[in-house]
């Protein structure tokens, strides 16, 4: 077990390292000139030259990358002309736009995205797994038909459409809820939840459709297995069969999906944040992309990549615990 964890950790570090290399190469080497991008379209050559010096873009690429890694591992000192600005590890550099530390920008935004994602996750797991189970157990009935079409509609709806419709309905027409604006959990838990209610619902409705489909098919597959037949042949009541044996076999794939799906969930979270105006990582990323603020883009992309890699390891462990036949090797 410990050996497995160690190996997975090393693997994760390698993946992250490769990721940083690729992203760095992509963003700093090809195809445009970062100095020109950073400076904006109305810069004259003299300004561009200044920017290039400031960002030490004159150095060879590998030296730049080395500095970047150094910054990540040990922090970095920047001269601002008047003094020295220290950027603690992990340092992703300074924003082109306002010279703020990228790490600070990210840590400010992280709680918003985490609030959105975790809250929605609770909701969609309940909703998705619940309705998936229900439709598997009510096979052939009206419940199943209705749920099947609902989940199909759910998989076919982009999150920003659901979000928009929810906004229109509950905020604009019915006026039951205020237009969401983020309030920190530490500030006012009640307002935090009220403001996040719509974003949570939008994200959860979309994500839960996938889980409902998977839970349903996984449950049906498990119910068709031979060992279920054994318990039926020994007079075990259907309820115990489902609760004790079928559920156990049906859940591991759902856990596996949670990990695989985290990446696409991040995408949906970005869309949700933008739609509802939540100041999270997604909004930061979109804004940075529009203003070609490369250090911020690199920072956000790497942080989300790392989050997914780590979440995958956690999910693998959970999977192994749930499916005890899988030896961790």
């Amino acid at each position, binding site marked *: 077990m410990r050996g497995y964890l160690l190996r997975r950790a090393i693997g994760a570090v390698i993946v992250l390292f490769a990721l940083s290399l690729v992203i760095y190469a992509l963003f700093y080497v090809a195809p445009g000139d970062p100095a020109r991008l950073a400076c904006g379209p109305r810069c004259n050559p003299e300004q561009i030259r200044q920017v290039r010096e400031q960002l030490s873009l004159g150095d060879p690429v590998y030296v730049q990358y080395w500095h970047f890694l150094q910054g990540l591992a040990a922090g970095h000192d920047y001269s601002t002309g008047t003094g020295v600005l220290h950027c603690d590890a992990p340092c992703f550099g300074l924003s082109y736009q306002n010279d703020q530390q990228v790490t600070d920008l990210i840590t400010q935004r992280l709680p918003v995205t985490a609030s959105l994602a975790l809250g929605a996750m609770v909701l969609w797991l309940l909703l998705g797994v619940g309705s998936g189970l229900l439709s598997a157990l009510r096979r052939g009935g009206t419940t199943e038909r209705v749920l099947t079409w609902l989940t199909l509609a759910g998989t076919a709806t982009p999150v920003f459409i659901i979000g928009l419709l929810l906004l229109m309905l509950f905020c604009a027409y019915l006026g039951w809820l205020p237009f969401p604006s983020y309030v920190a959990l530490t500030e006012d838990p009640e307002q935090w939840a009220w403001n996040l209610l719509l974003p949570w619902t939008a994200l959860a409705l979309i994500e839960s459709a996938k889980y409902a489909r998977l839970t349903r098919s996984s449950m049906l597959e498990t119910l068709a297995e*031979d*060992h279920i037949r*054994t*318990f039926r*042949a*020994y*007079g075990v009541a259907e309820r115990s069969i489902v609760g004790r044996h079928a559920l156990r*076999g049906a859940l591991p794939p759902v856990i596996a999906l949670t990990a695989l799906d985290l990446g696409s969930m991040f995408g949906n979270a970005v869309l949700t944040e933008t739609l509802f105006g939540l100041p999270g990582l997604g909004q930061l990323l979109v804004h940075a992309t529009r203003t070609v603020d490369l250090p911020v883009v690199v920072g956000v992309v790497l942080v989300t990549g790392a989050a997914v890699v780590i979440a995958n390891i956690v999910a693998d462990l959970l999977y192994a615990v749930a499916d005890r036949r899988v030896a961790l090797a």
Partner: protein
Amino acid sequence: MSPLDTPEPLVQVADLSVTFPVGQGAAVRAVDGLSFTMPPGGALGIVGESGSGKSTVAYGLLGLHRGTGAEVTGAVRVAGRDVLAAGDAELRALRGPVAAMVFQDPLSSLDPYAAIGDQIAEVYRVHRRDASRRAARARAVEVLDRVGIPDAARRARARPHEFSGGMRQRALIAMALACEPRLLVADEPTTALDVTVQAQILGLLRELRAETGMGLLLVTHDLGVAAGNVDELLVMKEGREVEHGPAREVLDAPREDYTRALLAAVPRIDVRRAAGDTATAAGEPLLEATGLRREFGRGKRAVTAVDEVSLTIRPGETVGVVGESGSGKTTLGRMLVRLLEPSGGVLRYRGRDIGGLRERELRGFRGEAQMVFQDPVSSLNPRRSIGESIADPLRTAGELTGSEIEERVRRLLHRVGLDPDAYHRYPHEFSGGQRQRVGIARALAPEPKLIVCDEPVSALDVTTQAQVVELLGDVQRESGIALVFIAHDLAVVRQVSDRVVVMRDGRIVEEGPADAVYDAPRHPYTRGLLAAAPSLAPAEAAA
């Protein structure tokens, strides 16, 4: 049907029909008007080939068709209870304490996530509501111990994948035993097991019957399995009864043609091949293996599948390779035709070392050695017509024109007993036996010197099996091709082989002329195998 004077039979089936819907209004009648009875403590064997409906009958006794969409008519009474009319709760009460079932595949029949002892305890507590958890656990250990699981208290905590196949089947029998049923329904209980394990499980069933006095309904395709273990035999074909009577009578003096044909097709382990059938090995060795090894996996997890095997095959002879699962016989066969590369040792074809050659260097050898595979489903590409599959090696060789190839394929189809016009038909249009014939035609196409047959008949019904074995023998005599015949079934191997090698754990434990090995086995393992093989003869069957 035998008259019974017992006031209340254990099982009473009258005019039972089971129909399965197969979609779009079509339906298949799996059981058609079947009637029989069985006295308390009796033992009835239902035998038949695949599709005869024998398992469907077994499921019907426990009402397991309920909720599957199958239409069941007639009457089924088990220990006086009307199975078809019983309510759900009544049916659940019947399943276990009255009639318990043992299934074919012991691995998939147990919950992979739960400890075996817990599963037995759960079933026990369903029927003994007053039993405490602790008492149920103790009962599980007790029955596991009874069915011969060593160190039952500890092993009860293991999950199914930690058990061997035979142990799993014992565990399933223990689950049945825990409920003290009056009737045990066993559906192909030993089909997935090796022959020595099969003998142990059958022995256990006999012991338990004698001890508890429960009735046994044994469903099997193997007449040998039924022979020594039941009092009465019911032969089924296409959902109907063919013949029903005391086991010895049915086996020794069958009344119906179908039963006679079925019995005639069962390969006999104790019968020598006709003298004219045997070939004398002569001439230079065709294929010569010396110290052949093959490992799978690396490092700590490496497994040696074939270990220092030396074997010589001469032109025109048939070498039988027998062994239980895991003996390395399939791996050996695949190495002989160089589908697998040996990890060690020397493999010579007509004096040339081919053991280490790469795919491209093997070009001269390909076509010389062919293979007939076990699974008639996966051995033919479902997307290509059978003619194309057979023609493939000829096209690759590129020596013949298109029309010559087609002519040759047609001749081959005729040779293996198929219609030459079947050229353009697809594998799914053929039965298992016919597909094996296609496989043989394909192996013959490049005019090889050697054909390795890997369990060529083990997926077939006994009558088809006999026909395919006969075809292989004919082809071999005619063409003088050397055959390597790999099988787990000792009797089948004896029917075709000049020489036999017995494999165990990757090694050859005994080798010699077929009659010598079968009539006077020297190695204790061979003796054990031969003793365990099911037989139709009364004396041996009882052993």
